[in-house]
């Protein structure tokens, strides 16, 4: 690894100040869990001159339910998500998504914020949060701003974060608390797998009519960034919940997906996985909805 200067931020305000100070003159990177950053820097000839360590900003490490919804601090680790009673109860899909990230060691280090900020299209926390219409709360020198996750990602490894901003919190809005959601991932093996495709599906059930209400589908690894499946969502809205409808939504989601072919899988195979995983994720969310009734 190349040499760099390290500054330790005491809290998120300090972090933003350090970023503002150094980003004008240096190439700056933020380190939290380090699982992505350090792995990237080890064999890279390009290196930041300055690294700002935000891992000690303890105010970004809590999971709380407020009037605004469920707030997850950006420094909450994947292990913390898995063990959070609130999340286990409200969103087992988030627990499942966290569980598929890396392995125990990386889940203990890696943070939700880090997973999102890295903006790799195959990120495992993205699809479920997308399906839950999560909002990114961003800390800048002037304070906080909130941006829907849909607008947070710009492309592979690109987000709207400015040089002097950090992701502070993820907010799942109040209206979606407890919304039945299911996450599925397909990788090349079971342990420590990168997603070929991952899917988060979420909807409310109109109990009288047994129809889909506010269906949302998040897809990972099938576009330059985590995306929604708008056509599949539109197809399901208000439709009666049947296995055929879920299968058809899967097929439509496959047309929403714009995957590439690479050495891990072909685009065509990824589209098939989108269809199968979307169908199964909808089934999983429906099973959860029924179990909750």
């Amino acid at each position, binding site marked *: *690894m*190349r*040499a760099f200067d390290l500054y330790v931020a005491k809290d998120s305000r300090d972090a933003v100040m350090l970023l503002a100070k150094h980003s004008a003159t240096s190439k700056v990177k933020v380190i939290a869990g380090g699982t992505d950053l350090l792995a990237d820097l080890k*064999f890279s*000839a390009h290196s930041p001159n300055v690294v700002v360590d935000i891992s000690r900003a303890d105010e970004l490490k809590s999971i709380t339910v407020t009037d605004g919804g469920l707030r997850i601090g950006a420094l909450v680790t994947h292990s913390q998500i*898995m*063990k959070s009673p609130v999340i*286990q109860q409200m969103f*087992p899909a988030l*627990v*499942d998504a966290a*569980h*598929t990230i890396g392995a125990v060691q990386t889940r203990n280090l890696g943070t939700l914020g880090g997973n999102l900020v890295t903006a790799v299209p195959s990120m495992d926390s993205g699809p479920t949060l997308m399906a839950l219409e999560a909002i990114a709360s961003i800390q800048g020198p002037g304070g906080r701003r909130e941006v829907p996750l849909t607008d947070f990602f710009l492309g592979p490894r690109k987000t709207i974060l400015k040089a002097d901003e950090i992701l502070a919190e993820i907010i799942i809005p109040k209206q979606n608390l407890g919304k039945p959601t299911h996450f*599925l*991932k*397909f*990788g090349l093996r*079971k342990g420590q*797998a990168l997603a070929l495709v991952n899917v988060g599906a979420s909807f409310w059930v109109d109990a009288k009519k047994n129809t889909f209400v506010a269906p949302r589908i998040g897809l990972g690894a099938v576009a330059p960034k985590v995306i929604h499946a708008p056509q599949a969502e539109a197809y399901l809205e208000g439709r009666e919940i049947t296995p055929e409808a879920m299968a058809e939504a899967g097929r439509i989601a496959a047309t929403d997906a714009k995957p590439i072919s690479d050495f891990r899988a072909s685009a065509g195979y990824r589209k098939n996985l989108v269809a199968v995983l979307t169908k*199964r994720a909808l089934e*999983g969310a429906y099973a959860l909805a029924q179990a909750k009734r």
Partner: protein
Amino acid sequence: MDKKPTVAEKTVVQEPSILHESVIAPLVSYPIEVVVPKARQQTPAVGQRATRLDGRLHGLGQTGYIDDITFPGMLYAKIKRAGVASARIRSIDTSEAEAMPGVMAVVTGKDVPCNSFGPSLKDQPVLAYERVFHAGDGVAAVAAVTEQIAAEALEKIKIDYEVLTPVLDPLESLKLETPGVHAPSANIYQSKVIKKGDIEKGFAASDHIVEGTFRTQMVEHVPLEPHATIAMWDANGRVTIHSTLGRITLGRADVARTLAIPISRIRIVATIVGGNFGGKNEITTEPVLALLSKKSGRPVKSVFTRPDEFIASTTRHPLIMDYKTGVTKDGRIQARKIRLILDGGAYCSWSETTLGKACILSAGPYNIDNLYAEAHVVYTNKTMTGAMRGFGAPQVCFAYESHMDDIAHLLKMDPLDIRLINAFNEGSLSPTGQTLQSVVVKESLLRAAERFGWHSNGKGSTNGGTNGGAKLLEKENVNGNTVRV
């Protein structure tokens, strides 16, 4: 800086309790309990489930691997890899790297007294010079006071390549018009043939002819411990090399050849090796490190990075395997014809052994009176292939056993039965005409079938697969939730 206490002052100001903790407490616990497990103390010794000699040290983290050894003044070496699969080297300029503070020695191919080695063909350079044959070829090496400086120095080495079109497909390589990898000789660098009986007569006597082509991929050994070496010269002109080599006696001869010094001037010490699987069976960086140590006058260590491990060590041979078998309707094999093409990568390495074993074993553990097997290994500009657990056997077993099930399927026979009908017996003649002893193929088939419950589905035919269909694959997680992967 004026506040920095001297060692004496430091000792005076420290609290006795801190002194006790930080100075007297051991860094590492060496348990005084030395219970010897029973199986180690019993006679007769053979057949005991004796614990390993190194088992306790492994568990305590006390096994010393090469990277755990340091010597005073030791330098760290890094090797620059070509990064192009086929090229002519027009020039190598190491001056900028040599000028870097902390860089103590730089070597290239021209510094190697005898720049070739290999277990059978001596076609592999210690460091590529004039010609690059695969992207993992080492082109220059640096020894520096830290690994970081060595890595940065590599980037300062300027190499001018005339990039050539690589030969990557073994079937292309087979064709004569393809430019030779190691010109001017042909790309087929070794062949083997086994002939027994008369295959044409055998095919004529068969009720069915079954054909199939099978292919396997290039695989890496992945020892958890990367290749590591430390070399150091002494004033008697002897070099001691600590190495992850799995075969030190022959490795020493190879090092002697490349350095052009007598074998008696070389000592090779291997510690416990952190995984071999065939990948650590020939020298790699040992001569380079010896040269860097000689040039710098210091001990020099190098440890492969994980990418080095993939691109610069040997791999498993990919094979293309054509099978043709004549069989009677009651399942007796009358004749078999086999052609194996081995992708040998850039250098021969252990291809001769792999070719030989693959060819000899390719017919399977079956009595086949009429057999023709041929095998050829060709050069390509890919990572060199070499020894790997099974020397071609896993590849040909995949082919002959897939082929065997295809034959059973065609004949509507139980795969177990067709194997039992054709399998070797005690005293069977192998494809090379060797009388086989202590043969237990049928016993192993029957015991495995019984243990597995091969006939338990009542159909008496196929088992070994259940169709999960559209069900969700589930794994239980720590919280008792279900994760669908």
